[in-house]
């Protein structure tokens, strides 16, 4: 049994949050650069130029990329042969989140659903983090992190289709969700599509799909094809950067597909904005 110190996890989580707050990941930066080069609309081109300049300023001057520094979302795979010494893993991740958000001058954006009271002085600064755990073989802890802003989360949707809807039904649905969203989720976006499983499994899969690097190819050939097809369809919508009209509405479509019940075809669409702050560490 390998032992990992509670405080080492706190520090590791704090560090990735500080880093992601100001440094746009390379995959996203490269994809935006390519989008700028290929964008046909001069207005959208200028918007993407500003987005890239913003990323440069944020990195050089250590300023948050966006004022919406998001809720902290984690996918954590815990090896069966690991033990956290000195506290609970969940508490360590929350503590690291609070420290990272405070140290990097990020915004505390968690609140009560109805009174809208900010939770920074009661629960903790930008707490609680959203954490999805999984147990795997081995003696490591694998942490995937993304900052998830409200603008893009607000346009996300899920629906359980009858099986007969098939691929065509899913493609239409994704297109409809992105069309209705327009400029609100800060395009150029990444679109996460969760297919199959149960209702909540589809939702979590669509979220996890956003953690994949832009430009990576889906291992499942059929899904890789479908990603390409949906991306093409979305970019025909003409929404463009920040909805101002253009040919680059989405940078990528990522699909995660799961086995499902014989009676249903759940689909979830989760959107990530151009400020796709995400990373991955193994402890």
């Amino acid at each position, binding site marked *: 049994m390998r032992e990992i110190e509670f405080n080492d996890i706190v520090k590791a989580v704090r560090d990735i949050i500080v880093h992601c707050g*100001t440094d746009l990941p390379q995959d996203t930066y490269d994809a935006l650069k390519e989008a700028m080069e290929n964008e*046909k*609309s001069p*207005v*959208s081109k*200028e*918007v993407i130029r*500003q*987005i890239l*300049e*913003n990323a440069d*300023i*944020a990195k050089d*001057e*250590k*300023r*948050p*990329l*966006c*004022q*919406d*520094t998001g809720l902290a979302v984690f996918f954590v795979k815990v090896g069966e042969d690991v033990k956290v010494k000195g506290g609970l893993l969940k508490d360590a991740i929350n503590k690291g989140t609070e420290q990272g958000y405070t140290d990097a*001058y*990020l*915004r*505390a*954006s968690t609140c009560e659903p109805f009174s*809208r009271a*900010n939770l*920074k002085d009661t629960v903790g600064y930008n707490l609680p983090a959203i954490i999805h755990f999984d147990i795997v073989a081995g003696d490591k802890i694998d942490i995937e992190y993304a900052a998830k*802003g*409200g*603008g893009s989360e*607000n346009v996300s949707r899920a629906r359980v289709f009858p099986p007969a809807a098939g691929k065509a039904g899913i493609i239409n649905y994704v297109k409809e969700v992105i069309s209705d969203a*327009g*400029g*609100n989720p*800060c395009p150029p976006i990444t679109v996460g599509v969760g297919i199959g499983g149960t209702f909540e499994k589809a939702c979590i899969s669509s979220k996890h799909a956003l953690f994949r690097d832009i430009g990576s190819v889906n291992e499942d050939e059929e899904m890789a094809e479908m990603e390409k097809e949906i991306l093409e369809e979305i970019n*025909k*919508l*003409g*929404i*463009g950067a*920040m*909805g*101002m*009209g*253009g*040919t680059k509405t989405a940078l990528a479509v990522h699909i995660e597909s799961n086995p499902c019940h014989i009676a249903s075809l759940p689909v979830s669409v989760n959107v990530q*904005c*151009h*400020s796709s702050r995400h990373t991955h560490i193994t402890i």
Partner: protein
Amino acid sequence: MAQYTLTTPLTSKDTKKLKAGDTVLLNGTLFTARDAAHKRLVALIEKGEELPFDLEGSVIYFVGPTPPKPGDPIGSAGPTTSYRMDSFSPTMLKNGSKGMIGKGKRDQAVKDACVDYDGIYFGATGGAGALLGKQITSAEVIAYPELGPEAVRKITVKDFPVTVINDTYGNDLYQMGRKQYEVKD
């Protein structure tokens, strides 16, 4: 598409020359407010009470900035999604405000109010919080400090880059731009 440099407070003469798609560098004072602050401001207007700032010619920026780093006037400060202000903006425009800065589409009532009261809805680049925050040279909370990032701030901007989305003639850049680049099968 024309480019302008304008200084607040704006007048009808300023706003009437702008067309959807024009880019503007704004200078002068802006007031920040999101939905929670709008709710309170509109309640004051309805009761006929005094507002924390003069609405005449004002430009309202929909933003909830990050906390400033030591020595900075403000943190990152890009626009938030505007539809949450749709139910309040017509009242603000009717009472003298001339502009709004945000991101994302507005409802018909807001677009109509822009036509009726010579208002402009400007779009700023969402997610460009570091770049836009740098164009803000001073910031001061003037009302509702208890709202935290949502408090009303008086900010001074220098060459703050925005694009005209809805003009005083009923045009909408989101619709125009999309129509132009949409590919129909």
